[in-house]
């Protein structure tokens, strides 16, 4: 099976065909801005000394994250990673809780027990990542296994970085998904670097999407800065999986536009590469598209921009008011209690 390289999206009609109306498009723009805004404010919080530990962002990856999350159905699930803040935003995690998480406060989704982007609200179908990459990928496969067993038309999305694709967990998960034709999408955010390590030291195949053939399913390469192409490819793969067509591996190509984390100035990335990809900034790119193809007005744009700004400012304030977590709850939090299984997820 040959890898398919996805075309860019060029017309409003094409987008309509893929199931998005104009409101959806403006919503995507809002989510992109919110995503970047959260991470930019995160940087400020970090400089203010309010974020313990290190700080990771997904600058450059906003379109990839928002695009795929927009394509997910309400009952679909996923295990997003450190560069995929846009997934949480799109599925409705409130920004103030993300800020609270950054700062290790009681109202962060992990209540200060874990940090960074190790978040996921199960009520939104998102399950918190662990640092060990890509340990949640085979977990997403297990979710798809449950859907298959129960014959539910739900799909799981498993995120992975191009670097982490070298780990055995990626292989075991993809192989199982291929063997059992499970409804799971492997979403590889290929941002060309794994910390300081360039892709040619991580894998020796041209496109990671080529790997799909080794597991008996389809592989697609998409430009991760084109939010609509991302959406279209994600949608197609998700609906295919939903209808019993099995997994798809989608390699979404971007550049990690900052260091690995806040302490890393990415000296090892050629400056020209940054410049080149800055010109392909996913948000600016979509803004221009909306002006050209969807006639986004100045007023609409202002409304969105200022709405996002207001939301984030309020969110920051609310997060700062969130209390410190209670050390007395530490040990009690380790084990689940039986009644916790009486939730919609554990029905």
């Amino acid at each position, binding site marked *: 099976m040959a890898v398919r390289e996805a075309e860019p999206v060029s017309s409003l009609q094409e987008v309509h065909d893929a199931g998005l109306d104009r409101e959806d498009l403006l919503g995507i723009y809002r989510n992109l801005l919110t995503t970047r805004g959260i991470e930019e404010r995160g940087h400020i919080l970090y400089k203010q000394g309010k974020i313990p530990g290190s700080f990771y962002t997904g600058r450059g990856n906003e379109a990839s994250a928002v695009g795929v999350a927009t394509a997910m159905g309400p009952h679909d699930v996923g295990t997003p990673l450190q560069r995929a803040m846009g997934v949480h935003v799109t599925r409705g995690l409130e920004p103030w809780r993300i800020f609270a998480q950054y700062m290790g406060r009681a109202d962060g989704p992990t209540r200060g027990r874990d940090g960074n982007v190790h978040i996921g609200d199960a009520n939104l179908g998102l399950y918190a990542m662990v640092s060990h990459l890509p340990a949640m990928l085979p977990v997403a496969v297990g979710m798809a296994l449950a859907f298959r067993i129960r014959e539910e038309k739900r799909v799981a999305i498993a995120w992975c970085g191009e670097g982490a694709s070298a780990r055995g967990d990626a292989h075991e998960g993809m192989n199982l998904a291929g063997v059992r034709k499970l409804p799971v999408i492997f979403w590889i955010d290929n941002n060309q670097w794994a910390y300081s390590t360039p892709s040619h030291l991580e894998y020796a195949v041209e496109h990671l999407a080529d790997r799909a053939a080794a597991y008996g399913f389809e592989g697609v390469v998409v430009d991760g800065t084109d939010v609509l192409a991302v959406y279209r490819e994600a949608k197609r793969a998700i609906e295919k999986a939903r209808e019993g067509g099995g997994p798809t591996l989608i390699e979404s190509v971007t550049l990690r536009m900052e260091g690995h984390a806040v302490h890393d100035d990415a000296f090892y990335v050629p400056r020209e590469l940054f410049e080149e990809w800055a010109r392909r900034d996913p948000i600016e790119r979509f803004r221009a598209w909306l002006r050209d193809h969807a006639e986004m007005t100045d007023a609409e744009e202002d409304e969105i921009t200022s709405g996002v700004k207001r939301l984030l400012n309020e969110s920051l304030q609310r997060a700062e008011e969130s209390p410190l977590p209670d050390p007395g709850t530490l040990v009690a939090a380790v084990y689940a209690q*039986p009644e916790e299984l009486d939730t919609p997820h554990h029905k």
Partner: protein
Amino acid sequence: MPEKTYLQAISDGLREEMRRDQRVFVLGEDVGVYGGAFKVTLGFQEEFGPWRVIDMPLAETAILAGATGAALMGMRPVAEMQFADFVSCGWDHLVTVAAKQHFRAGTPIPIVVRLPSGGGFSGGPFHSQNPESSFAHIPGLKVVCPSTPADAKGLLLSAIEDPNPVLFCEHKHLYRRIKGDVPEERYTVPFGEARMHRHGEDVTVITWGAMVYTADEAAQRLAQEDDLSVEILDLRTIIPWDREAVLDSVRRCSKVLVLHEDTRTGGFGGEIAATIAEEAFEHLDGPVRRMAAPDSPVPFAPNLEKAFIPQVDDVVRALRELAAY
């Protein structure tokens, strides 16, 4: 009440639970057509079909993480490792994801991992290990080691009900060797309650798994030959473990041997002995003795393995020494 082997009790308990609860399913290598390497799931696939008794690829992380993912979606997976030894291949998943998910994210992971454990039949270094001590150190996991058929069934049902990842160590050397009465009806045995295997007054043996029977033989011999009254406490569950029962027994007998089949250094016996030394210090009439396998891999040759696994004679000797202290 019918008499069953330890293996049959596990098999029947699991089958009944699968009949009762649609969410329970089995996944592992060769668990389907073959019925599992030890035939615990023999006939299951015929009854429940290939999507509730799933033959998995040879990939322990896929099995365990697959179980976790399915559990997060509301299933009650019971994963089988073909031998407990192979759980090392899924160690990262268990300690990194399954053990920590509730603490971090608040989502329970109700999975059971069945681990055919232990030695005694020349399985060699990779088919004889006892994994309970390694997992007992990882907060977030529960660890169960039944020694009787009735406990095996009752603890298995508790494990399936439990909202946390449970490592269920089945001792292979008990599978067909040990028989006992097993209630027909559904029942659970709670975690964290030791079983008084034998009452005694002079010296206590704290143990679990196959060593319960080794200790029992030693106790019988000492009762006859030395008129010594040995108490045997079968922990049954390692995490959580029944500190109160242990401390109570030690306070009564004042001398104690902690006995396990796994290797000594860093074995869970150290945790028990240390707890006794800290919390029952004033009641001790002698040093807290430990007996365990020496610090080496499990050897293959029968004479080596016999030298490795604690034998009745070894326990008798240790208890005599303690009694004489």
